[in-house]
């Protein structure tokens, strides 16, 4: 029998997933050429390539072809399989800067098949741990690897595990934190959907290491596909005896189940998550006692992020030293980032720690959209800060990002250009935190609200000098006295923008001007008479009749009547409306 060539197909334009139609057509063309039996075409969920039209990956030689059209299929098949012609023009060279450890299987294997996962070293680590390693040895290996929690805070994973391991209480739990709530981040979702078995394996290994009897997946209800895939992976693992009583003939027994989140950002916080799994309102508890000591139903519980868990099996397989060789002195391994905002190639990337932000933005993401000037990069979502353009060469690691006043966070990386307002952005994040505050402790509930009122005032052009000082004082109070990380970190976006973009705040407060034109209450529309062709389009479209005048005298905007809706700005064909 002739050799089977496997193709992975994917429509990366993402406007609509047409991969299925493409696959049908692909197979039809192959049938017409009579080479149907020598190929296999599989739809991939994510190849790590975006906005490149149809992409095909040839698994026999790992070559990727991009920007294909339906009409290119015949040419493609003839060239790759029958040696007629060439399709070199479609060859896609992926950037070499990325290093895929956590995402290694995403888009490569069928996430719903345990066999495919096993063919990619799946569950080898579990077998190795159960047969050759004591739980202490597993923790030792984690210590060597230097892996730190990928949820944001970066607590050493091994340390958390050994706290639970050394607890006197024998009933212990493992929780996978899949409550990814950061706006602008979707790393966990992609891993849960793309490689669910890796996380199941990580959960089992974590359970073995700390001596737990049960594990819980806590996943956002907003991620139905991730839930479905994890449930399926768990069911498959039970079938193969990888879960349940006496796993792989050892005396280790372990159960896994899925619990759903219900749309509360604060539940990403460890103790709030525990409350939620217990079926209560997700309000954080005061710490100590830490969850590793008293967690779920007051038993020792370790809570690890999805990305952390996804790395564990490979650490056991390849040894802790292997991971420790990657990254910086204090931050080991790789980190997945979701790059969004004003960049050319937004998407998921995985990079070794220590790579600089500029390498990510200009190298991997292809630079700023529309050739605009980069203003700042935001990491860590509502808990993080902005990194201004002049610090763009900061390496990505827990310690370096903390130095410049941001945090690693869970992996959102948002690029902002000159059109973004550095008062409006922190206002957005602060509003998010205020809405999501659970209301249990006063610094977060009241402090956040008051801060939001002040920044709203500034954005509306009603700010006074003293407001800035007042915000600083509230922020300090929140950072020191809030019960959980949500309140402690909520002022970060405001504080870091105030630090790096003081001039912009000054403009808002003193000059009542918004450079980017985002703070609409401060914007003024006027008509540039030199450009105006007197077409009256703006006059006709203005919803409140604020534009008046005549062809002879020209048109003017009545600032009192104007509601700053921007309609005139949009409809003008000659760019004659000036927004300031």
């Amino acid at each position, binding site marked *: 029998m002739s050799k089977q060539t496997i193709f992975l197909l994917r429509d990366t334009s993402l406007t609509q997933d047409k991969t299925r139609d493409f696959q049908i057509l692909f197979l039809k063309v192959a049938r017409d050429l009579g080479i149907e039996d020598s190929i296999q075409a599989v739809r991939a969920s994510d190849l790590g390539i975006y906005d490149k039209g149809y992409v095909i990956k040839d698994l026999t030689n790992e070559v990727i072809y991009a920007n294909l059209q339906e009409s290119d299929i015949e040419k493609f098949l003839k060239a790759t399989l029958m040696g007629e012609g060439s399709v070199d023009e479609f060859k896609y060279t992926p950037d070499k800067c990325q290093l895929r450890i956590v995402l290694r299987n995403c888009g490569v294997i069928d996430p719903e098949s345990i066999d495919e996962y096993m063919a990619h070293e799946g569950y080898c680590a579990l077998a190795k741990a159960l047969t050759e390693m004591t739980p202490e040895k597993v923790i030792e290996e984690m210590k060597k690897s230097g892996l730190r929690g990928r949820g944001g805070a970066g607590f050493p994973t091994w340390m958390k595990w050994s706290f639970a391991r050394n607890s006197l209480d024998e009933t212990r739990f493992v929780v996978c934190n899949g409550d990814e*709530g950061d706006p*602008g981040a*979707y790393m966990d979702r992609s891993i849960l959907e793309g490689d669910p078995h890796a996380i199941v394996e990580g959960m089992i290994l974590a359970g073995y290491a700390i001596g737990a009897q049960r594990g819980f997946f806590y996943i956002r209800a*907003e991620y139905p596909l991730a839930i479905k895939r994890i449930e399926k992976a768990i069911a498959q693992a039970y079938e193969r005896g990888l879960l349940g009583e006496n796993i792989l003939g050892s005396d280790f027994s372990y159960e896994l189940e899925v619990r*759903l989140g219900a*749309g*509360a950002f604060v539940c990403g916080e460890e103790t709030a998550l525990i409350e939620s799994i217990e*079926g*209560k309102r997700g309000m954080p508890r005061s710490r100590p006692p830490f969850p590793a000591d008293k967690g779920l139903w007051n038993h020792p519980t370790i809570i690890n992020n999805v990305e952390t868990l996804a790395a564990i099996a490979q650490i056991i397989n390849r040894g802790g030293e292997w991971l420790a060789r990657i990254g910086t002195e204090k931050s080991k391994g790789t980190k997945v980032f979701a790059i969004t905002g004003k960049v050319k190639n937004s998407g998921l990337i995985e990079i070794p720690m220590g790579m600089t932000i500029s390498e990510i933005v200009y190298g991997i993401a292809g630079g700023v959209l529309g050739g605009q000037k980069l203003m700042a990069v935001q990491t860590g979502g509502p808990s993080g800060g902005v990194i201004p353009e002049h610090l763009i060469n900061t390496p990505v690691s827990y310690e370096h990002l903390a130095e410049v006043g941001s945090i690693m966070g869970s992996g959102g990386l948002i690029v902002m250009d000159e059109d973004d307002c550095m008062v409006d952005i922190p206002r957005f994040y602060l509003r998010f935190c205020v809405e999501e505050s659970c209301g249990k402790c006063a610094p977060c509930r009241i402090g956040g609200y008051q801060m939001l009122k002040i920044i709203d005032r500034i954005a509306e052009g009603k700010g006074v000098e003293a407001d800035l000082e007042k915000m600083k004082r509230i922020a300090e109070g929140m950072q020191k006295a809030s019960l959980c990380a949500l309140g402690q970190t909520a002022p970060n976006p405001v504080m870091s923008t105030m630090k790096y973009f003081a001039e912009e705040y000054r403009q808002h407060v003193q000059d009542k001007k918004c450079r980017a034109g985002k703070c609409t209450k401060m914007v003024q529309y006027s008509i540039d008479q030199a450009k105006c062709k007197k077409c009256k389009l703006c006059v006709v479209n203005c919803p409140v009749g604020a534009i008046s005048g005549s062809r002879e005298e020209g048109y003017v905007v009545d600032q009192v009547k104007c509601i700053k809706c921007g309609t005139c700005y949009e409809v003008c064909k000659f760019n004659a409306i000036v927004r300031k």
Partner: protein
Amino acid sequence: MGKKTLTKADNPAETQDQMIADLADKWRDKKGSLIMALHDVQDHYGYVPRDVARKLAHELDVPLARIYEVVTFYNYFKLTPPGKHRISVCMGTACYLKGAPELIEEIESLLGVKEGQTTSDGLYQMDVVRCLGCCGLAPVLTVNEEEGDKVYAKIPRKQVAEIIAKYSKSGENEKK
């Protein structure tokens, strides 16, 4: 999660009792599973009706207040029935930067509803949701259809009216 249709069963009261009893049996012995039970209720009805909450409280032997405590805390649970077509506008950071607030404004002016409200004819509901996780497509809104949510990506403000029209009564007839 595919939302079941909200059509009344032939014998609503009886099937409802049965459903709640089954549901209670499924979760009663599992510790801390109230949220999971409520997810099942919401999947079935699209919201958590008061009479169902009362019956569930009775079956699970928890105070009704506990159920309401949970339902009102989490954004995901609703106390009012959803509109037939739920338009969810993503307000993640990327969508925010790329114009989601304008989309919301446009929908508000076209349908005359605010966030979370349903139009008086029960046809549309507008929700503002947290990051849908497809920031590369910003701004994004989804409309629920029978086969699952339909995602509209990279939409300019002008296209909103067109999308809404697609789900209007006459728009539906045209489809058929």
